[in-house]
């Protein structure tokens, strides 16, 4: 068979490269059982169990109380845990280096990943809202949905920056261990599922200004009270700036 090996170089258009990379990321994500476990099954399970745990949570409406926290949990699992572990191993296996040499470019890689996370979060959101509605959850009339989207976006940026910081600075195994450990800690003490003011008084103020506390409390303010969580939006925006700057400073491609 004859192949025409004469040079004819050229990059595909930027938008095509970005979208092809996004698809690649999504396909790989969908194939990893352990990633789907923490990004999809754990939040769904939490939602179902939480909706039956009125007495444990000491509330008449366990589903309404737990739902915003489950969304926050889903965001952390996707934009932080899954991204950190995935990127850590990509760096370790030289994927980042290799793709950095293709027309995709390092910027394309980062934007393609960001797009993939947003699409994956939309899928998570559809699944969780559908499940919640089936379980009997109803949105408050006059919920400020723009504030909801704003919180999700800011939290995604803050956690993704944090994930890349871990993955870009530590060895893949250490990233794996840290990402899982922080996920469990955030779940238990991070103000994700339970409001930060329900935590021990020593922790409460700290957690309120942490990214996990801010997204948890912020989503509860939107979905439970129907008001706009200005404080949490500012806190998350600040974290987004800090982790992005740190990432640019400390991220190593190899």
């Amino acid at each position, binding site marked *: 068979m004859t*192949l025409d*090996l004469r040079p004819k170089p050229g*990059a595909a258009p930027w938008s095509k490269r970005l979208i092809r*990379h996004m698809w690649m990321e999504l396909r790989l994500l969908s194939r990893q059982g352990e990633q789907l476990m923490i990004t999809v099954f754990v939040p769904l399970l939490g939602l179902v169990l939480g909706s039956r745990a009125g007495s444990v949570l000491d509330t008449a409406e366990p589903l309404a109380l737990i739902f915003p926290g489950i969304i926050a949990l889903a965001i952390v699992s996707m934009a932080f845990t899954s991204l950190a572990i995935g990127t850590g*191993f990509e760096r370790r296996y030289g994927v980042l280096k290799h793709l950095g040499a293709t027309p995709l470019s390092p910027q394309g890689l980062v934007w393609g990943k960001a797009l993939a996370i947003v699409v994956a979060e939309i899928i998570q959101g559809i699944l969780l809202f559908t499940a919640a509605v089936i379980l009997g959850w109803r949105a408050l009339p006059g919920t400020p949905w723009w504030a909801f989207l704003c919180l999700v976006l800011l939290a995604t940026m803050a956690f993704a920056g944090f994930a890349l910081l871990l993955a870009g600075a530590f060895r893949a195994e250490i990233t794996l261990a840290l990402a899982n450990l922080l996920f469990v800690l955030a779940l238990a003490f991070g103000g994700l599922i339970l409001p930060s003011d329900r935590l021990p008084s020593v922790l409460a103020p700290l957690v309120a200004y942490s990214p996990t506390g801010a997204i948890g409390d912020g989503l509860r303010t939107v979905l439970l009270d129907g008001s706009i969580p200005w404080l949490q939006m500012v806190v998350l925006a600040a974290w987004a700036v800090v982790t992005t700057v740190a990432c640019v400073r400390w991220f190593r491609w190899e």
Partner: protein
Amino acid sequence: MARLLVVPRAAVEVDNLSMTYRKANSELIAVDRLSITMNVGEITSILGPNGAGKTSTIEACEGFRKPTSGKITVFGLDPIKDAPQLRPRVGVMLQEGGAWLGVRAGELLRYVASLHAHPLPVNELLERLSMHDHQQTTFRRLSGGQRQRLSLAIAIVGRPELVFLDEPTAGMDPHARRETWEIIGELRAGGAAVVLSTHHMDEAQELSDRVYILNHGTLAASGTPVQLLRDAAEAQLVVEFGGAVNISRLELAIPELGSAEARASNSYHFAVQSTPALIADVASWCARHQFDLRSIRAEQPTLEERFLDLTKKVVR
């Protein structure tokens, strides 16, 4: 008829390149004021023992590492500053794959092809590299040789003008190796610049138009394979016998042979240029004296010997 003088066009020019790394309190000089050129339409081999500075030099040309001092231009551009323009034009085959473990071979190649404007037809490329049956195999399950073939495909699928191949045939079976050599030859014939880093001297000797041998970060030798061998150690005459012989009798009888160096059992090397007359003398002397002569052959020095000679380890 006027003679047409073709001046080779440089794809990569390395000018006075130094690369140093900080290691604890000491400074490691990986590349020391190196100047080399890699031309379009040629295969340039960079050879050297481990730690000679090959990878540092090549990765600096690829834009992965920043030179400590000196200048590199690729098609007249800066490999780091002008990376966006260069990436589509340069194909890179990394030594250790650089792929997701869960990706399927065909899927990965199609994805990389889609990043380019005029990629090679993926199916034909896979078939050419005998990878067609492994399209659905995940990278995790590919053998070393299959990973190498896939990496080669990734490096060339975008139809680059300049291809860096780092140990392209490591772990390949002899068939795949020949096929790879053919592809590398076709890339050159098509007008691409190919830069090869290899530990297989036969590969470098067979393929290269130009060879640079590095040692301790500096250039130990350079030239075409023919030039390098011309400067090499003397040719040898190898004489083999069917049983033990008293070789000094032969040495005394034909003084121009010089003194023998025993290599394998009953096999002797003489550092002498063989001529038909000399071979005839040796053969007839052996016949007359009942020496059980099995073979006489002239051995040309190989690039491997030249390489070993140039990069000799200093024994401390």
